[in-house]
């Protein structure tokens, strides 16, 4: 599993907007974004290099949690928490491929 945390200098409300408003997503995540923000809703991300990925929204808890499943493989969860400096954003991504290859590698060689 991938786990990343970042503290952003903005209230949760604004971070939520950056994660869910296609126009804002187009400023940092992808070049062209479509997002139907409801469980079961579809999302499409296109990048300038021609890459395109599709996802299905699985969880929408405004200003708290957003989760989606990539249609090709894996799922992503965003969790927002208050922080003294703004908002702590936690990103977790899981993928069947990593759980077999990389987690195996990590656990097998942690004790070498």
């Amino acid at each position, binding site marked *: 599993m*991938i*786990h*990343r945390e*970042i503290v*952003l*200098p*903005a209230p949760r409300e604004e971070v939520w907007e*950056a994660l869910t408003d296609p126009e*804002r997503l187009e*400023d*940092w*995540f992808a070049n062209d974004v479509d997002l139907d923000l409801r469980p079961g809703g579809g999302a499409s991300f296109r990048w300038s290099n021609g890459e395109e990925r599709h996802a299905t929204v699985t969880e929408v808890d405004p200003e708290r949690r957003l989760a989606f499943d990539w249609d090709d493989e894996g799922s992503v969860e965003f969790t927002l928490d208050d922080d003294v400096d703004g908002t702590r*954003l936690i*990103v977790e*991504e899981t*993928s069947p*491929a*990593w759980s*077999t*290859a*990389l987690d*195996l*590698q990590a656990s*097998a*060689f*942690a004790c*070498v």
Partner: protein
Amino acid sequence: MSDPLGLVFGALADPNRREVIGYLSQHGTATATELTGELPMTRQAVSKHLVTLADAGLVEAERQGRETRYRLTEAGGEWDDRLDALRRHFERRRD
């Protein structure tokens, strides 16, 4: 290659390649020259094993000036880039 797991298990099946992984796991990064000095293998064998490990996605190469350093692949590098972009997104909005 349509069988990524086959590549991974094939790469891990060789004890010498497991030595290479073990070394990288302990030291973070190494050049082929360092690995040759530390492990009981020829330079040629080390290079071959590194190619096999890289093909399986277990090891990645990074050029630093004249030398190439190898490290164990860590998933999630794309999130570091995306979250950097998100941080810059908020910096732009504050300006």
